[in-house]
């Protein structure tokens, strides 16, 4: 069987702020047997205007995304939230629009990274070594819109030296919420502090998640309150632990 033709939807946050997460994603996908492409026409899924209520602006960006990912077997993103935008929200956003059929088609072949690695490429176990205690934050949209449960944790479980300790409420929102974080900064920061206290209680030195937005929010707050706790994208940790980092660059 020829390898799956996978388009990496890197997301604007990873592209601009965390390019190493994109590289780690490519390395993991290739390690699991995928033929990875990066369509240069992609920018942003349009979630910020969509969540702010500006549907026309969201559609404008959505059309760019629909065009960029035409023709691939799968579109894979290192973000549960952006993947959910394509898979869950686009069919609503384009309902009754000329692009409706294409939006539904894209929705049917869009996946979050750990989900695609485990459920579709059959990567049951990743061997590697990473020393330390970590805790896993379930990003909201991956958890509740895509129904991701254990894929990220499953991959972490194969890493030697890594101890996973769960928070009291790993599924509680960190307070990012896209534009929510700047519209209501005080509430968002209070939510991040709530999260930080839970992370602290696990004794973990690193909090791992599958979404750059949440990581940016938690890292940004932890830098002010608990600089000794690191944040890491699950793709970065896995690629680093498995020694795959070189493979992408």
């Amino acid at each position, binding site marked *: 069987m*020829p*390898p799956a033709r996978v388009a990496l939807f*890197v997301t604007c946050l*990873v*592209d*601009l*702020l965390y*390019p190493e997460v*994109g*590289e780690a994603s490519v*390395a993991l996908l*290739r390690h*699991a*047997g*995928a*033929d990875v492409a*990066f369509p240069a026409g992609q*920018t*942003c899924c349009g979630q*910020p205007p*969509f969540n*702010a*209520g*500006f*549907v026309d*602006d969201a559609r*404008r*960006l959505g*059309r*760019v995304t629909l065009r960029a990912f035409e023709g691939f077997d799968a579109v894979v993103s290192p973000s549960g939230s952006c993947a959910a935008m394509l898979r869950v929200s686009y069919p609503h956003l384009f309902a009754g629009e000329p692009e409706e059929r294409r939006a539904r088609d894209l929705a049917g072949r869009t996946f979050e990274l750990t989900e695609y690695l485990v459920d579709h490429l059959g990567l049951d176990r990743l061997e590697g070594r990473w020393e330390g205690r970590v805790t896993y934050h379930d990003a*909201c949209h991956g958890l*509740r819109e895509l129904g991701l449960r254990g894929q990220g944790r499953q991959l972490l479980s194969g890493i030697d030296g890594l101890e996973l300790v769960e928070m*009291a409420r790993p599924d*509680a*929102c960190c*307070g*990012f*919420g896209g534009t*929510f*974080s*700047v*519209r*209501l*900064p*005080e*509430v968002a*920061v*209070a*939510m991040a502090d*709530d999260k930080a206290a839970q992370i602290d209680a696990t004794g973990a030195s690193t909090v791992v998640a599958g979404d750059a937005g949440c990581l*940016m929010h938690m*890292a*940004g*707050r932890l*830098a*002010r309150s608990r600089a000794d706790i690191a944040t890491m994208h699950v793709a970065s940790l896995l690629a680093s632990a498995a020694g795959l980092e*070189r*493979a*992408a*660059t």
Partner: protein
Amino acid sequence: MTAGDERAGTFAELAHVQLEKPGLRRAIGSAMDRFVLNRANAFAGADLEAMRAAGEAIRAHTVARLDSYLAQFAEAAEARGVKVFFAADGAEAVEYVRGVIRDHGATRVAKGKSMASEEIGLNHALEADGVDVVETDLGEYIVQIAHEPPSHIIVPAIHKKRDEIAELFNDVHHTDLPADPPELTRFARELLRDRFLSAEVGITGVNFAVADAGAFVIVTNEGNGRMCSTLPKVHVALMGMERIVPSFRELAVMLPLLTGSATGQRVTAYLNVIGGPRGPDDVDGPDEVHVVILDNGRSRLLGTEYRSVLHCIRCGACQNVCPVYRQVGGHGYGTVYGGPIGAVLTPLLDGFERAGDLPYASSLCAACTDVCPVRIPLHEHLLSLRRDVARERAGAAERSAFRTWSAVWSRPWSYRLAARFGRAGQALFARGGRIRRAPFPLSRWTSGRDLPPIASRTFRERWKRTGHRREPGAADGR
């Protein structure tokens, strides 16, 4: 929710006040944790998803035929001697209740818990008439004597710690009670017992009305609903027009969903089914029973995309899991209904002028949708409301910011250019790989958090240089 009832501030302003209160977040958080755990225990071993699906189906069926079920209920209830009044709005409902009290020359009212009565500002109106109204649910009594609105649908005084309650009791009653819950409860019981026996009129809410039986149900844990509806000579029950089920069969599905979701109980302590005033052979019960069925904006939602908001059974579960509610409590919203259901319902009932900011008081984490016993897609409604609010009320600055941003980012070349501009601009602010202070609007982020700088080489720049090359070591299918 009555005319002229202004909110004390915007969500941002009120949330700020709540966040400043020492210990409030901890108190709400630990109570919420307890409720979430109790709910999980209550439904342990049950097929909760099947129950939720059944609950949703019953509510959707009923609300879609609300007119005929209400007519059926009214006819059956009237046949049992109940006086039924349909109130188009809060003012009509208040006027009707005032009339009943006036007709009986009543001055003392014992009141059970009713969110609908909060919605229409009933207590204030009656007190203005010189009627002495006492809330008999302990939590409601606490917030009443504190002159505060309830802060949670089920647990109105959730924001109050035990020592605050003791202090409040001692201030109001000139007592010297310790901050001991059983002791405080005993004191309140004695006080309220006297009220039950002397009140001429009892006012309660309604959890469900049963259409074919013409009966209605009150669920309480303290038994105060039973006292209010049996001891006074006149009982007035107030219900939102959507709080109806076709028959007792459906009620049997809805009750465990309500009690399990609300308080984590499989069965409530007191369940009253009220079929009308005392009959000639009954030894006790009220001489008159009135049911006030309140529209107050609800019927406008029928047939719209928001109709499922009328499926709500007021269990408060969405508040218990909401990470925003957890930080600011019900008083952060400044409306009768707080939390996710309030952020959806209030703008729909009261309009965007008054509550258009509430749909934004959410991170859209969707925990509310996941927990709702009748599967109301609350976070999707919040999104739809934002769309409506943006269409009607968005400021020019925000509108043009999103328009410009989406225009620039909809072309890869201008997106890349914007990244380069951003990188040049951030040189002024980035220190040691972090941005601690940035100009507006990013200052709204950096006020509490660091911001990562744009990478020296973006992913697409890196990919262009090396990414297309496949390493021989990687299992890339070649």
